[in-house]
């Protein structure tokens, strides 16, 4: 059971990694990248390194995504928002 769960996670990781650079809109790429970090943090927890899992969830899925969003806003690359 655990093995199947890990396999699903790893497949999802690959899908996220490929999807992030194949997506045409930068906003979607950032969101996919954040979900990649979330899956990665679950995998860290399964690999018994909770320290890394907490850091990955806070930095990868949280703060770096926000910084990407702000950068996109600053260069006016967010489509479909009030900012454009």
């Amino acid at each position, binding site marked *: 059971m655990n093995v199947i769960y890990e396999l699903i996670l790893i497949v999802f990781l690959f899908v996220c990694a490929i999807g992030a650079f194949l997506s045409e809109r930068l906003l979607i790429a950032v969101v996919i990248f954040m979900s990649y970090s979330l899956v990665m943090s679950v995998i860290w927890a399964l690999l018994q390194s909770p320290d890394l899992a907490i850091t990955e969830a806070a930095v990868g899925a949280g703060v770096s995504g*926000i910084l990407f969003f702000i950068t996109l806003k600053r260069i006016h690359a967010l489509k479909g928002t009030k900012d454009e």
Partner: protein
Amino acid sequence: MNIETNFFKRLNDWVNGEADRLFPELHETDAPKPPEPVATIGPLPNKDVLFLTSYQAVALIVVIGMVSILLYTVYKLPLFGVADNPAVNEVVERYVEKGLEETGAVNVVAGMILDYRAFDTLGESSVLLLAITSVMMLLLKDEKNTDPDEELIEAHEAVIEDHNRDMILQTMTIILMPAIMLYGIYVILNGHLSPGGGFSGGAILGAGLILFASGFGHNRVKKFFNMKTFRTLTTIALLGYGVLKTYSFLLGANHLPTGIPLGTPGAIFSSGLIFVLDICVGLIVACTMYGFFSVFSRGEI
């Protein structure tokens, strides 16, 4: 027109926010164009087409080169799990077996990064400070890089934003903010007992501040966290770390005992300096995380 000046002019426009796209040719399909007379749309100049195709070809070659260098390095790495690898030596054994006894930290990782390898953590904290310093050098607003018209527009936008705050975001912030801050402080203070520590706890604290700032605006945050607080906290934390540990680094870890008792393993006030160093690292990380957000979005803290 020369290709290079053309490209750099476009790059300059793009960086200054005057043009939406760096390569408008590549995004022609994105937005429906206003109808134009067909006669004015000519083929691109030959030089531009050449530049665009060669740019992509060169980029592809560089990426393939990078990937092959990295793969070759991986191929040269020692095999996984072989007994005579350089990584398999007495150091790991020592950390696992004597870690609790020598550092007093139940969480062996905290004992490693803040006691045996405290020098690495000092470097990481300094890198964070260096990064926020460079971001502030580039993006911080002062009288030289703003003009009054722009400031007027931004003040106007800020007033509009203040009156149109998102209610869902605000309510969720009120509910979540205390829990996030409490969890961040818990992770920092429990760094030597449970997974986590200064870096993760500081990132959680910074994320909480960012959530509050996006829900209620920068001006509300400024009441308790402004440039002065930022400077004081980062300086005190980094200096404190340096003062507490540099003496030990300079003597090659042959230092006198600190005099702080290691305490009972598992108690909150235990493991000597690690507790204090965790707080220092947490403060630096929290300040820089919020600093990045604030400088990126508003050009001020």
